[in-house]
């Protein structure tokens, strides 16, 4: 059965909007509440969520179209209107009171993956239709932010459908897979369900008959193995701030996904108008997609005029890298300080101790040694282990020394973070660094393993170069770039001697670090590399 999804009423006085982008593709399995198009109305850019679910058989709009409220956007087949569904067998009244297990289908939707993460790319499919899976077994690999997570099965069962293929973009709440699972009557399995504070996920009745919106809610909670939806009693809601916005404005905010409590009102007494909500939404949108700059994107010519071209859509990593680089480049006043360290003696030491470290399971690389030195420098110069809070007009100093290492992978630049570097031996660091780099290159690094860094090291020495100007990995305030070391003639004690020289480039945030400190910090690093004993005295 085909159904049309039309542009719903978007709020008072909004009659039409321009399609900024179409977020779904022909043939996609559309879930209720899944954003369908990005629409610029009046002043705000909003995502229009679907009110239906099913397979998309026709898309009637394209980018740049102006569409009116009520105009058809999509055609859906197999639309799951509530009337078409049937009650879950176990829940049906005919079932005997002590109903034993039977089967039902369970939809697996993309759960909430973390703050601010609303979509991911399917990078791997780990099961096939017909496979028997265990609870918590991984079904799909989703690349989000800068990591890959597995989507686990919410319950044991048989895979009956996979709704996405590799490379597809999945949105939170979107239908990913369908399982045939054993269903246990909740009444029989959980006589005290109403009182139970921890309902067992496995004994959950299949939400086969629920609309997909509720199924999404139920399964999202299970799939993340987090607490079940715990509604708050009306009476227990803490005294809410009386937001100075009319009910119609509050509703508009809710509809376009803006927390009205965060909107600044420009009316008398801080009253929030419809325009304030839309302006806030537009701002959020720009921050999200343009990396915080309002500089208009560069208009591209038609490159195919001059020859053959190929276009590849952004991967999540590419998109986020692009956003962050623009954000850092445009909001941080960068200064790059250059220096060089004579690592001749260090290289001798590294080669002579390499075997011992290898025996311990690591590889003694220059990066491992630089890590140790940088950690000491961060202890000595705490302003390099800080973040700047412009809104709060304060500098936040971190008492831990977690250091990120830029790793070049097939998916793009990733920065895994080594924890408490100052408290670890060079051997330990060598081992960890090797493991982390391997994990990152094979795409198994977790998001949490890429968070919490205080400083970043980017070592391009293995590739080449004499110096470069690295961009700070905000909200950090400095980054150390390492270029290729080479033997140079150095004038020592009246004669030229061949010495191994390592070029170093330190970019720092000039808002919080003064030029002299930048020079001192880098000099300290050079001195420690030149004479590791220095660490013992100064570090």
């Amino acid at each position: 059965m085909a159904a049309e999804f039309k542009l719903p009423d978007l709020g008072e006085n909004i009659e039409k909007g321009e399609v900024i982008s179409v977020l779904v593709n022909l043939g996609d399995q559309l879930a209720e509440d899944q954003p369908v198009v990005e629409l610029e109305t009046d002043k705000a850019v909003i995502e229009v969520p679907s009110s239906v679910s099913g397979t998309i058989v026709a898309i009637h709009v394209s980018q740049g179209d102006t569409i009116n409220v009520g105009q058809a956007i999509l055609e859906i087949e197999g639309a799951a209107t509530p009337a078409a569904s049937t009650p879950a067998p176990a829940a049906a009244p005919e079932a005997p009171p002590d109903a034993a297990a039977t089967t039902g289908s369970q939809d697996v939707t993309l759960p909430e993956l973390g703050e601010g993460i609303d979509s991911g790319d399917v990078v791997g499919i780990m099961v096939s239709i017909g496979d028997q899976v265990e609870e918590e077994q991984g079904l799909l690999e989703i690349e989000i932010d800068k990591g890959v997570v597995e989507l686990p099965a919410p319950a044991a069962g048989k895979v009956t459908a996979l709704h996405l293929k590799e490379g597809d973009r999945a949105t939170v709440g979107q239908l990913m897979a369908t399982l045939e699972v054993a269903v246990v009557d909740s009444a029989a399995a959980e006589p005290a369900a109403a009182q139970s504070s921890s309902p067992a996920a496995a004994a959950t009745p299949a939400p086969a008959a629920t609309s997909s919106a509720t199924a999404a809610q139920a399964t999202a909670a299970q799939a993340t193995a987090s607490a079940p939806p715990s509604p708050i009693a009306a009476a227990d809601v803490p005294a809410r701030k009386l937001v100075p916005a009319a009910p119609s404005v509050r509703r508009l905010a809710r509809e376009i996904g803006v927390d009205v409590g965060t909107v600044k009102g420009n009316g008398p007494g801080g009253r929030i108008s419809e325009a304030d909500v839309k302006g806030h939404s537009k701002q959020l949108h720009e921050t999200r997609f343009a990396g915080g700059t309002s500089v208009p994107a560069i208009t591209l010519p038609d490159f195919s005029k001059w020859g053959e071209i190929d276009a590849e859509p952004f991967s999540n990593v590419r998109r986020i890298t692009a956003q962050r680089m623009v954000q850092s480049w445009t909001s941080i006043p960068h200064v790059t300080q250059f220096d060089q360290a004579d690592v001749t003696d260090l290289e001798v030491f590294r080669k002579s101790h390499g075997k011992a470290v290898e025996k311990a399971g690591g590889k003694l690389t220059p990066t491992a040694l630089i890590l140790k030195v940088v950690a000491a420098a961060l202890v000595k110069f705490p302003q390099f282990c800080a973040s700047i809070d412009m809104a709060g007009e304060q500098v936040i100093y971190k008492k831990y020394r977690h250091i990120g290492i830029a790793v070049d992978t097939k998916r793009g630049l990733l920065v895994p973070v080594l924890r408490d570097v100052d408290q670890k031996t060079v051997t330990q660091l060598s081992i960890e660094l090797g493991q982390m780099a391997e994990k990152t290159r094979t795409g198994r690094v977790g998001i949490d393993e890429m968070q919490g860094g205080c400083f970043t090291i980017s070592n391009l020495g293995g590739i080449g170069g004499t110096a470069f100007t690295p961009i700070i990995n905000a909200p950090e305030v400095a980054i150390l770039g390492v270029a290729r070391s080479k033997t140079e003639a150095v004038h020592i004690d009246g004669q030229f001697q061949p010495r191994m020289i390592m070029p170093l480039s330190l970019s720092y945030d000039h808002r919080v670090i003064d030029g002299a400190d930048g020079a001192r910090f880098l000099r300290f690093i050079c001195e420690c590399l030149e004479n590791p004993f220095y660490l013992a005295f100064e570090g």
Partner: protein
Amino acid sequence: MVDKTQLVVIGGGPGGYVAAFRAADLGLDVTLVDLDENPGGVCLYRGCIPSKALLHVAKLLNETKEAAEWGVNFGEPEIDLDKLRAFKDRVVAKMTGGLGQLSKARKVTYIRGRARFTGPQAVSIELHEGGTQELAFDHAIVATGSRPIMLPAFDIGSDRIMDSTGALELADIPQRMLVVGGGIIGLELGQVYAALGTQVSVVEMTDGLIPPGDRDLVRILQKRLQNQFEQIRLETKVVGIAEDGDRLKVTMVPAADGDEIVEHYDRVLLSIGRRPNSEDLGLENTKVQIDERGFVQADVQRRTAQPTIFAIGDVIGSALAHTASHEGIVASEVISGKRAAFEPNAIPSVVYTDPELAWCGLTEAEAKEQGIKVQIASFPWGASGRATTLDRNDGVTKLVVDPETERILGVGIAGPGAGELIAEGVLAVEMAALVSDVAMSIHPHPTLSETVMEAAEAYHGLSPHINAPKRK
């Protein structure tokens, strides 16, 4: 056989029927289940509506007495109790019958019976006419309301002990009656019986009548009640009720001295609160959670822990008909796929006594309790022309104002018609009006509504009719 509905609403009170009607208007196939012949629930059958019919009569009776002061004598009223009861019943029949028709017009399937959940998407309905009906649903809204609390100690099987339902039946006009509980319901019904000629006393455990109301408002009501009621005992506990011949012997203990007081009454009205109807619903067959006081737990969209089941109104502790109606709309809109939530800034409360008390938004007491800095602007009805023409200067209109923004956060009113006047306050709070917005809106003269405007003017010391200190 199993029937199927998109939405089943259990309970046909102002929460349930409004939810059902809205869902039907939004295109859902809706079934409404209630024990009574027509939708209406406690509010229409045994609550708001019949009590207001009787309070109207009480007000008239009081005014005929006051008219003597204005040179009009009616003499002693003759009360035909059967006819009075018939008037009240007629009001109820008209309203509930009307709802039955509205329900049909919307093609809402109305089933008279008791529904119990057999699972997260199925109910079994014990039909009024006998037999049972199984019904599968996509979504359900629990709107089963509440019932008066009866304490086991007072449950001595005497029909002289009434709850609000019994009091509204108006079996007789007792000579002497005790109202246990000085809340809204007890005082409203106490005033009805007092107007009909009963000597009414009130006993309240806490230190004040109408506990949630601001004291300055309550004091105005209390002053009038002191003339109408035989006695008002505060901080006094009823420890025993026993039948003594054809009367009731009531033992009370005041907290102050602990000396027992024994009094005899013809009837006792118990109005000590209401408890949610969350039992015998089969909720144990679902994931719906209930707290230790029996309230169903629901989120801001009024969805319970069982995603297919919503709950609204008294059964979740909302305790006001108009709140339940609004929650019903929210739940039905959410079920219809709209992004709605229950997020009002102002819920009005009205005490339909004479004088009426009404408030909305933030009360002065709440502001104090939550440490919110507010400025109060009030206008005493002694300075109102319209109040003076009514010979009712015993009122006040006050605004609870945020001194930073001069925004109106709450409104409180005491005086005849306060329940009608508060609607402007609700609009002001919901629209985030500033005192100047209200002060600069022309109000008709002479009306009681002017007191709202003058209170706003008084905020800046600019009310023409009171000489308040100017604010800097």
